[in-house]
């Protein structure tokens, strides 16, 4: 495996305030990598440095083998290989979906087929609709279409499903997985932990400008070995017990009730529980 992004001791200060305080990161080709962290943790600053939108104070950064802090023709060649889906753009929207996507396809050396991209993001029925008539979720899918039209090797997604209904989110997740399966490396920032869990191969938690942990969603914060909570209904009372051996407890209960255990659940700590514990409540907030 080769690193698509490698970051070494990255720092960014604004005056006395160190927004990014020494970050090391390696993102491999073909993975979906999620960055989690509260507002003001340095998540956006880090991603914007990777995207070439901001300069850094110190450290080394390589994205697709190039330092993003470049200009001119070299920057154009580099951007030709990257797709960026930013947070909300709110143009006047006097162009149609297909006009906009077709126009953006002219920026790239090797654009994807416009019709295929429209189908991929599920906007077939809205192809000739003006952008200002689209719903929030449809607009977001257009944003993604514009991010992938240049057939990028690397795609940045910033809060991609904000404002989606549950069905649209599921559809969107499967689109992102399809992109990953076709070889695109994806860097995702999100506030939704279920989204990170459903999509990401690995997650990094950033707080106060530093990386707390990098792991797979199922192993983050020792989730897999943490105590499980077993709950069941005993008569009219809901009972619960924490254990590191839930299977044994369930077997014991099974004997006790002779067949079905009423209202049985076995729950491991969720990604959200682990995450909240890691960032220590809300003190990472600005």
């Amino acid at each position: 495996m080769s690193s698509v992004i490698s970051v070494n001791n990255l720092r960014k200060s604004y005056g006395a305030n160190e927004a990014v305080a020494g970050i090391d990161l390696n993102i491999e080709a073909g993975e979906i990598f999620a960055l989690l962290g509260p507002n003001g943790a340095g998540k956006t600053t880090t991603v914007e440095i990777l995207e070439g939108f901001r300069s850094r104070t110190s450290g080394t950064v390589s994205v697709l083998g190039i330092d993003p802090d470049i200009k001119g023709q070299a920057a154009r060649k580099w951007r030709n290989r990257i797709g960026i889906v930013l947070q909300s753009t709110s143009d006047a929207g006097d162009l149609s979906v297909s006009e906009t996507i077709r126009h953006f396809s002219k920026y790239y050396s090797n654009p994807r087929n416009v019709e295929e991209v429209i189908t991929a993001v599920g906007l077939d029925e809205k192809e000739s609709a003006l952008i200002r008539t689209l719903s929030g979720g449809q607009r977001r899918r257009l944003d993604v279409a514009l991010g992938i039209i240049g057939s990028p090797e690397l795609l940045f997604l910033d809060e991609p499903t904000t404002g989606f209904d549950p069905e649209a989110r599921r559809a969107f997740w499967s689109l992102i997985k399809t992109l990953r399966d076709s070889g695109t490396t994806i860097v995702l920032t999100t506030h939704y932990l279920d989204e990170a869990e459903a999509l990401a191969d690995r997650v990094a938690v950033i707080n106060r400008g530093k990386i707390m942990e990098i792991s797979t969603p199922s192993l983050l914060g020792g989730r897999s070995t943490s105590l499980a909570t077993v709950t069941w209904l005993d008569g009219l009372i809901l009972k619960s017990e924490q254990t590191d051996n839930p299977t044994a407890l369930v077997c014991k209960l099974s004997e006790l009730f002779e067949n079905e255990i009423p209202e049985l659940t076995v729950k491991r700590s969720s990604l959200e529980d682990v995450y909240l514990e890691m960032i220590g409540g809300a003190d990472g907030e600005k």
Partner: protein
Amino acid sequence: MEKNKVPSAISIGIARGNLEIKQFMRQRESVVFTLAFPIMLLAIFGSVFTNELTDGVTFSQYFVAGMIASGLVNTGFQQLAIMIPVERDFGTLKRLRGTPMPASSYFIGKVIVVFVTMLIQVILLLIAGVLFFGVNLPTDPIKWLTFTWIILLGSGASTALGIAFSVIPKSGRGASAVVSPVVIILQFFSGVFFVFTDLPAWMQQVAAIFPLKWMTQGMRSVFLPDSFAAQEVAGSWETGRTFIIISLWLVVGLILSIRTFKWEQDR
């Protein structure tokens, strides 16, 4: 490595020009306003001031020269200095920055949309002037040559200065309030609404620093008889000086716009 050859800045610029024209034409209110407003002004001023300035030179004739010069400033400078901060606020510029599209293509697109809207505006104004307000068009080809270079140089300078000025408004919402007074004051000072030589000397001197006064004077040299040149401040049309000053402003505008252009509002 054909595969990695990004499209040229010029071809992307032309694509942007087409797109911007399409967008402009779809905003009906602004199309009507941009194209009809100069004609309305001509109708108002032409009806209020019916006197002749000298033999055979009506105020309408004088005013048409000023309105064409103003059109260069309105479609270029004013339009861009208001629209670009709006595009910056909307995140349109940041999105473009994330693509292989270079800033030069964005500028080329703006030059194209300004030139096309300006041309339509001027043609409609001249047609209305000739049909309804007794405006006479020049017959001398030399005058049309002057007309052409003032239009080209003037809209270029106006576009460049509009992009340069677009860094000044702090938000898209407030842009109009910052930009419009600058344009209106410049129009009064430059002899668009009044006969330039009737203005106080200090106003004339302030106006002489800025390009609109020279575009207006240049357009008068096209639309007024040569005998009128004696009535100008310098007693002549000062064609050479007009060329030099508008060119200088074009260069200043280009340098400033390339140096100071902002894709995002500073935080």
